[in-house]
């Protein structure tokens, strides 16, 4: 009998949407990707087109995962504050993509540094979600 119950139970577990912690991991992952791509670009070790495409992809994925998370925000974060952080994060990434396209290398470091600050804030929020589980 237990075996018959196990299959629907497994499927029910699998059918559930990603948890807030998993959504937060995705957000952290895309911000870190943008930072790493930016770091490689600062060292002039990747082609500009790759950097721009990766930054644009990070921005799209952040929009998508951020919207999902904010539909039912976990109690461990202040949703209004977090939404603002996400908007600012995305702004820095868009700014980096714009500067790459304009080949304005000297100005690139400023949004990249700012992105680092937001990355820390988001990681702290992610840790709060993890510890509240």
């Amino acid at each position, binding site marked *: 009998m237990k075996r018959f119950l196990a299959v629907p139970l497994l499927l029910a577990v699998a059918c*559930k949407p990603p948890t807030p912690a998993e959504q937060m991991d*995705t957000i952290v*992952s895309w911000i870190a990707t943008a930072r790493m791509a930016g770091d*490689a670009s600062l*060292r002039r070790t990747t082609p500009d087109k790759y950097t721009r495409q990766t930054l644009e*992809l990070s921005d799209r994925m952040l929009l998508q995962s951020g919207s999902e998370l904010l539909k039912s925000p976990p109690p461990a974060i202040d949703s209004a504050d977090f939404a603002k952080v996400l908007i600012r994060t995305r702004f820095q990434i868009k700014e980096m993509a714009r500067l790459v396209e304009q080949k304005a290398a000297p100005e690139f470091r400023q949004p990249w540094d700012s992105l680092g600050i937001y990355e820390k804030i988001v990681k702290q929020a992610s840790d709060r979600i993890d510890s509240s589980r």
Partner: protein
Amino acid sequence: MKKILQLSLGIITSVGGFLEIGSVTTSAQAGAQFGYQLLWPLLFGTICLVFLVEMSGRLAAVSKHTVVGAMRERFGFPFFFVVSVGITIVVFMVLIAELGGIAFSLQMLTGIGFPWWALPVSLVVWLLMWKGTFSLIEYGASLLGLVTISFAVAAFRLHPDWAAVASGFLPSMPHSDKARYGFLTVSILGATISPYLMYFYSSGAIEEKWDRSYVVMNRIIAGFGMFFGGFLAMAVLIAAALAFQPMGIQVNTFPQAALLMTTALPKWGFYLFALSMLFACFGAALEISLAIAYFFAQGLGWNWSQNLEPSKNARFAFVYTVIIIVAAIPLMFGVDPIKVTMMSMALTSATLPFAIIPFLFLMNDPIYLGKYRNGWLSNAVVAIVVLLSFVLALISVPLEIVGG
């Protein structure tokens, strides 16, 4: 002297031809998410592959049969038909993934979107198949694939904690994400133990006219070549664990994977990754196209040889022409090669018993192998790893499909 040259070339091509999009993607994802914890399926898979490849070469050298030809003869057409449907679907998915890997590498190098590369890449693969000989395909592509040694250089330059690396070779369960861990385990096993390698290797042995005097050489090539190939996949996992895991990067897309070596090899890392993927996937796409054509031709009793003019084995050439063109279609519509890769690797694990267990029966048949048939060790190792991957696949593939 000729045999020493063949031996060296065999080992080098096994190393150069080991990595492909499946092994790189699964290893990178595993390292990024679970650190060194998933080194054990890579080790198990590599050991199993060493045995399987050695067996396929031994079968060809001793019985003068390819794996497919012998299975068709031993188990009959109905059995061959049922197995071929499953295996063809899975191997075809792997071909889509490999063509996608080439197209994505070109996107990284040029900035032109991968769907635009799908058709030109397929045409180049087809043209080489049409014009090239077996040696050109096997040795040429695999020698270019030696650029994948850069993954090992990157892993060493990141100075891993070797005690922690060693602990990854012992199976353990993570505290969270157990379903994902299971899915990655079967994907790694599927990426490592690819049945197409057996079909390709045994057909190659017949193409190169191996006989019983090649049994020892076959053992050395399979042992060293596959072991060092597996070592490169482990290097990818270690590099990903060190470059991505501390930053929290999950490797869900190709552009993320492309950053794998930018920390360890700042100046050339990006280009080495792109070229590694380009050549590794190119070699694998050629081998898979050839393996599918061999599979059909040997199973259905057609003329087959990559060394013959296409006009002399038209049906063989027709099979690879059709599959290469059809495989390009989903890529032209933007299907994500990484998603195809992950699913095809897990499905490979699920289909392994259907391809491998009958093969084990064959390898114990004195009619085909006489005194060269399998010992208990090779039977046990292969059976255990294949059944383990099958059970894990039965649990984790539905979870991954339903859970998205």
